[in-house]
């Protein structure tokens, strides 16, 4: 049972780490701010989600798990807002560079 849980954790966290890497690759390779913004907010948030998922079984009790989920929800919320705000700001500034 324990081994199964650990394997789940390892798989989820590894997948999360891969998404973080993908996000960074996107930041490096994408040509303009809009697309970079996508790479940043989408990929990284998914990566964090997977890491939180992987850590859930390791969490100490219900409160700990709840906090982990709350962290993820909050980052989602922040990511969505920031993407909106930055996109707005970019559009106000004129054509993307």
């Amino acid at each position, binding site marked *: 049972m324990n081994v199964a849980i*650990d394997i789940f*954790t*390892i798989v989820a*966290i*590894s997948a*999360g*780490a891969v998404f*973080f*890497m993908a*996000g*960074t690759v996107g*930041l*490096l390779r994408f040509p303009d*701010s809009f697309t*970079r*913004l996508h790479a*940043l*907010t989408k990929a*990284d*948030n998914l*990566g*964090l989600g997977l*890491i*939180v998922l992987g*850590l859930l079984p*390791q969490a100490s009790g219900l409160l*700990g798990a709840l*906090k*982990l989920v*709350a*962290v*993820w929800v*909050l*980052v989602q*919320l*922040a*990511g969505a*807002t*920031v993407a909106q*705000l*930055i996109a*707005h*700001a*970019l559009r*106000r*500034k004129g054509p993307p*560079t």
Partner: protein
Amino acid sequence: MTEFLLAAAGFVLLTVAVGLLRVLGGPGNVDRTMAAQLLGTGGIAALLLVAAATGVRGAEDVALGLALLAAFAAVALTNSAAPPEGRDPE
């Protein structure tokens, strides 16, 4: 398990560091603001992993605090960049 979690934290931190180099270079202020967002997400992930590995109590609360404030830099920028009426018209 501990080693794995730490390695994962190190990996995430590394990707964040590389991304940070990219966004801090600009070209514009808006791009740079993404640095805060990048660290907000990646830093929280690394923090959670490190905390799980080293068994530091209360680290989730730090992550919660960081998550609550994750949008602040971008909000502060867009808020000051758009000059509302009544402030110095710069």
